[in-house]
């Protein structure tokens, strides 16, 4: 028997001896399970906590990473599938155009947001949604400028496809994504008179980060991107050779008759790109202060693995820094964390997410409409005096959302919305609004009322399932001990006290 074989048999032997006691002891426990699931997805319900508590950290991370998806699980509403052709718009009357803007921008926008919120609430892979949202906040486009809900939906599907796939592939694809082409004015970037918007943001925000390029790099790169456009009648990307500048450009000291894809490859070849993205992932998942040497090490893997995202996530989720005690509670929850996480962790049944579209906006994260091309700054800036109060109000509402209260709220909100729609139809307000719109408003009021009525948040049942699983409400909900000393020991008031505690705002 050679030495390696002996070693192996020793290892085997000890494995057999240790197997019995360890099988029970290796599970990471409820606290780690809640932490991991909250950080990598959305706050888990008691059953998910119990399931993951029995796994080791490594097993749990691998299970999360193997469950990711490239397609949504929920169907999106049919009317989001409409793209309105430019030639159709050109033949419309003023009134028809106004109507179109209303249906596309306002109602289509609400449908779209409700669909994605529903996906976040129901997905079996919260990591996929968190990463899709991460890229939405990285490769920013906004419905406010793009206007077409169909193009915004397509961009979401495109980001989802590679959310945990390949960054290089996603960069090339999203740069030619019609919503992006509109959002960063690529369509009007032409030979002879370039529009620098996309060239600047692709360097500053999508790849290198500020300070790693010159103004001249931007001017030259803008020339390479000329000709990237969209067909306004089909909503598809087109390359317009006639307005493309085929001349020699010099970017980062390299010269050639580069086109847009060539410039993107030049950007991917730079070390700064991998470090910029890994640093941003660190802030998303680990802590607000990236550890520079650790980031550089993971960034090297990112480049070596041809910009595959999963190996980076695996390293981050299994890093010492991720699990360190001082990292617990180090990140402020985003509005999506608060809205979706609270509903998921309380095991709420939400057949229609529409009522929460507005909540999310009030809390400061209107999905599909980030404030500008840099996206939501996040971190501590999620909380100011206005958004803190909106959070407390939302949490107070869901903590008190027993059946009777909810039915009353549904009635009140439905009545108020219907009354407004009726007032507008009677012409008793000054706003000039069509009959079509007031009909839509009525339908909207009914949908909102039904959505609130059919929701189910059962806190007594939730408390029972926590007890049954053998951990406490604090463990199920909080990353750090509560700040306010509360004497409430049980039931709904206990849950309400924990949701309103400042410690609930961190993860």
């Amino acid at each position, binding site marked *: 028997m050679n030495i390696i074989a002996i070693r192996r048999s020793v290892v085997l032997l000890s494995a057999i001896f240790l197997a019995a006691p360890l099988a029970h002891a290796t599970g990471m426990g409820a606290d780690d399970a809640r932490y991991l699931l909250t950080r990598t997805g959305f706050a888990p319900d008691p059953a998910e906590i119990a399931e993951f508590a029995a796994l080791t950290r490594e097993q749990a991370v691998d299970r999360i990473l193997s469950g990711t998806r490239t397609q949504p699980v929920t169907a999106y509403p049919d009317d989001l599938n409409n793209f309105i052709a430019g030639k159709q718009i050109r033949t419309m009357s003023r009134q028809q155009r106004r109507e179109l803007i209303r249906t596309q921008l306002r109602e289509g926008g609400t449908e779209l947001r409700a669909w994605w919120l529903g996906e976040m609430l129901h997905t079996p892979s919260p990591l996929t949604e968190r990463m899709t949202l991460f890229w939405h906040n990285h490769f920013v486009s906004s419905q406010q400028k793009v206007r077409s809900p169909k193009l915004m939906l397509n961009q979401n599907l495109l980001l989802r496809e590679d959310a945990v796939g390949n960054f290089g592939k996603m960069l090339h694809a999203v740069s030619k994504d019609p919503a992006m082409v509109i959002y960063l004015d690529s369509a009007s970037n032409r030979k002879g008179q370039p529009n620098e918007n996309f060239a*600047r943001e692709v360097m500053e925000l999508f790849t290198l980060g500020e300070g790693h390029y010159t103004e001249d790099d931007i001017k030259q790169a803008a020339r390479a991107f000329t000709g990237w456009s969209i067909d306004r009648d089909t909503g598809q990307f087109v390359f317009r050779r006639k307005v493309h500048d085929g001349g020699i450009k010099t970017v980062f000291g390299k010269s050639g008759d580069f086109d847009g894809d060539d410039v993107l490859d030049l950007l991917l070849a730079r070390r700064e790109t991998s470090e910029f993205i890994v640093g941003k992932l660190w802030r998303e998942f680990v802590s607000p202060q990236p550890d520079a040497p650790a980031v550089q090490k993971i960034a090297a893997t990112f480049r070596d693995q041809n910009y595959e995202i999963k190996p980076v996530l695996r390293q981050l989720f299994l890093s010492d820094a991720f699990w360190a005690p001082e990292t617990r509670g180090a990140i402020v929850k985003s509005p999506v964390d608060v809205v979706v996480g609270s509903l998921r962790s309380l095991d709420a049944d939400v057949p229609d997410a529409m009522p929460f579209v507005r909540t999310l906006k009030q809390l400061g994260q209107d999905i599909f409409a980030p404030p*500008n091309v840099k996206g939501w700054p996040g971190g501590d800036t999620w*909380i100011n005096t*206005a*958004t*803190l*109060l909106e959070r407390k109000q939302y949490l107070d509402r869901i903590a008190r959302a027993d059946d009777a209260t909810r039915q009353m709220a549904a009635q009140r909100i439905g009545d108020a919305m219907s009354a407004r729609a009726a007032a507008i139809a009677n012409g008793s307000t000054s706003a000039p609004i069509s009959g079509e719109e007031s009909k839509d408003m009525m339908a909207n009021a009914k949908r909102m009322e039904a959505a609130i009525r059919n929701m189910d948040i059962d806190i007594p049942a939730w408390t029972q399932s926590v007890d049954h699983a053998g951990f406490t409400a604090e463990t199920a909900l909080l990353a750090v001990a509560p700040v306010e000393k509360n004497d409430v020991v049980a039931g709904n008031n206990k849950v309400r006290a924990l949701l309103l505690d*400042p*410690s609930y705002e961190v993860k």
Partner: protein
Amino acid sequence: MKRREFLSALGAGTLVSLSPTLAMAAAAPVGRMDRLLILVELKGGNDGLNTIIPFSDDAYYALRPQLAVRADGMIKLDGKVAINKVLNPLMPMWSAGQMAILQGVGYPQANLSHFRSIEIWDTASKSDEYLPVGWLTRLFAAYPVPPQFTADAIVIGSADLGPVAGGARAIELDNPGQFSHQARLVQAMSSRGGGALAHILKVEDDVVRAAQSLGNGKTLKTEFPDHGFGHTCKTACETLANANGIAVARLTLTGFDTHQNQAGTQANLLTQLGEGLAALKTALVEMGRWDDTLILTYSEFGRRPKENESGGTDHGTVAPHFVLGGKVRGGLYGNTPSLAVLDESGNLPYQIDFRGVYASVLERWWNLPSQTVLGGKFALTQFV
């Protein structure tokens, strides 16, 4: 330790780490913090050349064949410059000598990134210097406002705190009545945590202190225009009317990043700006505060003199800014930009350093030394 004590200990720690000079300056006199500063942020980079128009410069028309404002779209201020006609609501203040126009405001080595450039303005840093907190936050740390004040600052129309980020007692709100109502869900009591949690405890404390001193009974007769910026001005005035002292209000009007189809977009925004500022003046007169208010506009940068192919303009450097108030010395300050001299990126050099404008606010408005806050001496402009 009580939560309040913990928070002030935290504040003191931040202060010392900022700068030993600042911590010592805290003992100095308070200046005239009873005087109000209203900052109006034109977010996205307002195109200065179509706001204050160098109509007598031929180069202006050569650079902007599509976008140049025509003679019937402007009001001449002197033989060289005119104001965009949609800003007509400001003209009574101009005629009364209560509006100063600062021309060519910017800084050396202009950065053309929105985010970096606004950070430079908000922290009053050099172009290549990174400062952690807003310039007004440094001011309040060195020269605290009276403790009974409702807040150091109110912030309306923007989620980011800009010049009051990083520790000032800043209240962000949409509606003062709703603020007081919702504040009941916050209790200020306890005492621990670091990092993210400390930030949340600080904001809770700000809420509790502001809610305690904010009334909600007073309403104003002034009518505000019914658009986004009009509502922002209304919220600001209602809060000021019910507050027990506020040193700064920062209002944001957003949407100036006009790479494409600039004409209509900018006209709409400047209309909102002009109507909003006129209503703001009326309300401040109603409150008896027009003479102790200084209104100052700012923006991350101006836009490129040469228009682009999309009927828009790309990022530029300098822009003109407005200073309004009962005590303002009206008129034009700085030289009219000469479009014949552009830098290698096709942009204008600056005439007035924005830190000189801040220094003038500190020294000539609040009677406070500016050097400790701004980290250097800058030429003052005599607009007040």
